[in-house]
């Protein structure tokens, strides 16, 4: 789009790694300054399920023979725990490097997805795609805060990349690992399985019903279940008991920690009447899942797009969101440039995001730090944020479907009946 069209391939191939290196270096430099310290308690950047501070506490307890899953606020997967407690030294610098590396891998995976979708080895858009991930403030701020949601994003993109490249085992394993880090990512199971048996190229403009038989899904699903069970067994071994299940997955379903996030759950369940709590917890959890089948049916001609839409659903509606969840959705729109000209209200969406992202930290601070505002201020800004995500989702679905009708002709108008 914005990249100059008359660049030779050699220029591009030289520019892509240079730009990437500059971005990575800048990121690393930021992560070793004092900035991460100020961000580590920021509740928009890391939720109770993804906070590095809680992870450190869990590692400390684990190393001192106290079961971190016997209570407390440690809600990270035992897989992460074992990884950090055994392989990696407990140092901030290592963590900063690791998190930056996670972002680089994610950006690389996104470029790979883009290339596979375009069926090219290299393109002039590569730099833009990578930069849109690395420069998205919704993504790099959580990384600076060392929120594990950055790792989840990287795994999500890796799973999609493997799915695009038809590497079934790698995709399913990555997805099952991701499921252990975040239960909500179960939403992505069906679209990724479908992506595995279909091609990732853009068919948005010429929708065709899926011809591949669905029974091909079963062995893939079986493989996924096997990985999940194996990882669950490993988790149980690491944790020493099954206590990790209610503490990690259970938290997503029962919301024991009502710490404010950017999502819609926390204030709803803070203000919920006690006798309605289980009912609404069920409703909110089920609500997340009901989108999967309709979206996959509607976008059966282009499952990568279905993946993209469901990422938008997750970023808006899942429990314990951080900024990096909607950030991934927004960034991923960069690989669907064909839909841009059909968007109805991109300006409104951008302005809503601008509004919400400026007000959220401000209102959060005047509520819990300054004490001059109350919870409603922050709640209102998260509602605006939800609307912004809703608008983005709306436009993504509209433009993804509208593109099939073709460019509008003078004197006619395309509407839905």
């Amino acid at each position, binding site marked *: 789009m914005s990249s100059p069209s008359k660049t030779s391939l050699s220029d591009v191939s030289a520019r892509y790694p240079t730009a990437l290196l500059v971005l990575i270096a800048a990121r690393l430099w930021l992560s070793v300054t004092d900035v991460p310290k100020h961000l580590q*308690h920021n*509740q928009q950047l890391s939720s109770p399920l993804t906070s590095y*501070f809680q992870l*450190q*506490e869990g*590692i*400390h*307890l684990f190393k*001192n023979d*106290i079961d971190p899953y*016997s*209570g*407390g*606020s*440690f809600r990270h997967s035992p897989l992460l725990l074992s990884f950090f407690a055994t392989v990696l030294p407990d140092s901030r610098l290592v963590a900063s490097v690791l998190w930056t590396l996670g972002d680089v891998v994610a950006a690389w995976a996104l470029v790979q997805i883009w290339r596979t979708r375009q069926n090219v080895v290299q393109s002039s858009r590569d730099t833009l795609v990578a930069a849109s991930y690395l420069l998205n403030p919704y993504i790099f701020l959580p990384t600076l805060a060392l929120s594990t949601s950055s790792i989840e994003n990287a795994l999500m993109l890796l799973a999609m990349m493997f799915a695009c490249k038809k590497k079934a085992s790698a995709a399913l394993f990555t997805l099952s690992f991701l499921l252990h880090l975040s239960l909500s990512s179960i939403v992505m199971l069906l679209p990724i399985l479908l992506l595995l048996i279909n091609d990732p190229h853009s068919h948005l403009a010429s929708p065709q019903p899926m011809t591949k038989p669905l029974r091909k899904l079963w062995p893939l699903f079986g493989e996924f279940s096997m990985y999940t069970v194996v990882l669950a067994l490993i988790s149980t071994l690491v944790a020493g008991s099954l206590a990790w299940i209610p503490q990690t997955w259970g938290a997503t379903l029962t919301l*024991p*920690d009502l*710490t*404010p996030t950017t999502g*819609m759950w*926390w*204030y*709803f*369940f*803070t*203000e*919920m009447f*006690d006798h309605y709590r289980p009912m609404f917890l069920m409703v909110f959890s089920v*609500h997340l899942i009901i989108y999967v089948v*309709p*979206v996959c049916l*509607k976008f059966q001609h282009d499952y990568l797009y279905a993946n993209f839409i469901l990422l938008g*659903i997750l970023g*808006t*509606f899942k429990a314990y969101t951080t900024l990096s969840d909607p950030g991934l959705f927004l960034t991923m729109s960069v690989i669907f440039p064909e839909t841009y000209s059909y968007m109805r209200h991109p300006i409104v969406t951008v302005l809503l995001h601008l509004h919400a992202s400026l007000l959220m930290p401000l209102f959060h601070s005047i509520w*819990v*730090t300054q004490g001059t505002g*109350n*919870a*409603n201020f922050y*709640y209102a800004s998260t*509602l605006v944020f*939800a*609307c912004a*995500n*809703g608008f983005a*989702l*709306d436009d993504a*679905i*509209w433009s993804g*479907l*509208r593109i*099939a009708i073709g460019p509008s002709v003078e*004197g*006619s*108008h*395309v*509407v*839905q*009946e």
Partner: protein
Amino acid sequence: MHSTSKTLILWPLTVLCLAARVTGQEVFDEKLSLRTLQDGKVESTFTFTTLLKGTLPRDPRTLDEEDLSQHYKLFPLALGQILREYAITELHLNINAGNWNYDRWGYPEEKGVGTGAELWAWLGDGATKTVDERWRGLRNALAGLFCASLGSLDELRTTSPAETFTPEGTLPTWGDSLSHQLRHASLPSEHVCTENLTPFLKLLPCKSLSGIATLLNPHRLFDADWHGMGVHVLWREEQGIEMRLTFQSVSDPLRSGLHKKPDWSMQSLFDRTITRTCPVARTSEIMVLLPQNAAYHIRPEPSSVSGSVALYDVASVEKPLNVDLLFHESLTYPLEYRSDSVPFTVRRVLLGSTQTHGQLSVTITNQKPYTVQALYLETMPWLVQFYLHTLQAKVDGVTQDGIISNITYIPPVAHSRPTTFQVLLTLPAQTTVHITMDVTKAFLRYTEHLPDAQRGWDLPPAVFTPLEVGPLNLNDTNVGQKAEEKRRIYTSTLLVDLATPDFSMPYNVIIFTCSVVAFIFGNVFNLLTRRFVVVRLEEDKGKKE
């Protein structure tokens, strides 16, 4: 004729009951000890002890069977029934108001001086009713008996720190498989007042009509700088069940400001004198700790003086008895308060201005010329979450290892179980140890907040138990304390300010959130289900023309 036969049948039964009843011989002792503290205040401690000789606490395994009948002469039936109903082996209840100042006042005569209510009990396991069920029953029964909010000492506050709250009596061995369990809970926001004292007095055999209990005048006691009452029940092997009712107060004779001498008399402290003896009391004595470094005059002449303690036998002295201690010179305030008996001073604060996280900071100054070891116990409600990886100990500003050891940590469970955090501290001689730990503050459901949510939550005091306090101090100013007994040091309570939601908003929030969800869902639903159609706009153009 008919009734006579009934009586005849009942007689042997009655005899049987008498033989099997719970009570043995009962003995009642009362004692008041008075001492002038470093800062001129007067500590008075009332102790009323009832001993049920040759009795055992109820075996929890017999809880399903009908209990033996209870006949007491002196022991209060109301308390006896509670103890047997829930098979309590040992019970300690303290309700205090104010902060005990260890630096100025030294150790109190009764150990439990933590601000607010504190209840702990040792219960035998092995009954069909679990320990927790009986604990719940116990605190509800005591709440009713003492008109205090002890019912709020629920799962949110119950812990079992058995190393700090060791049994003061003996725990009976009913069998090898039978173990005893501790339940402890404290409620720092509870306040002691007249409504608690009235049921307390009802437990005494002479009420407040005669004997030392006459002096328990609520108008004066609750006007004191520090006051607190305690109920202790324990079992002493080869003696029996002992119930000790205590009332401690620290009054300020200098408060009136008329003179600068810390003179006191019973009349000035309690506005009463003793006119009658309690006839059922075996002993009834008043102990006055005489000042060491000041010229004084005491009236009337004590029954006996041993060392620095003047003793009055209430039964034999002339009544009305009004002990009066007069100082010849006005009080010279010490430049620095330093207790000889308390090995270190503790200051505990919660730092940080935000409602999301903060730092717990404990400063301990060891004034002794030798290393002191102490157990440090926190029983924190889940509202404040500790982060052990940030736990740090500095000795005079320098980070040092080996200060903190033997960490016992039971993490909290959100919305229910509190944290139990206990460490062993090694405090080097004449240093200040500074311990810090990061904490986060919880966000509560709107129904969990207190009615006065903006006031914040009172957090229970930390408890320090000094161990191996170097060479034993024989000049201990406390009277009647056994040296081998474990002492406890309670810190002051904390207040934590939690973020509050808007309490008027539940309906609005449910409506707003559901509306946004419905709006997005509706949009997605529309987009996915409705067909696209191309509409020609020429008709409109025609109309316009």
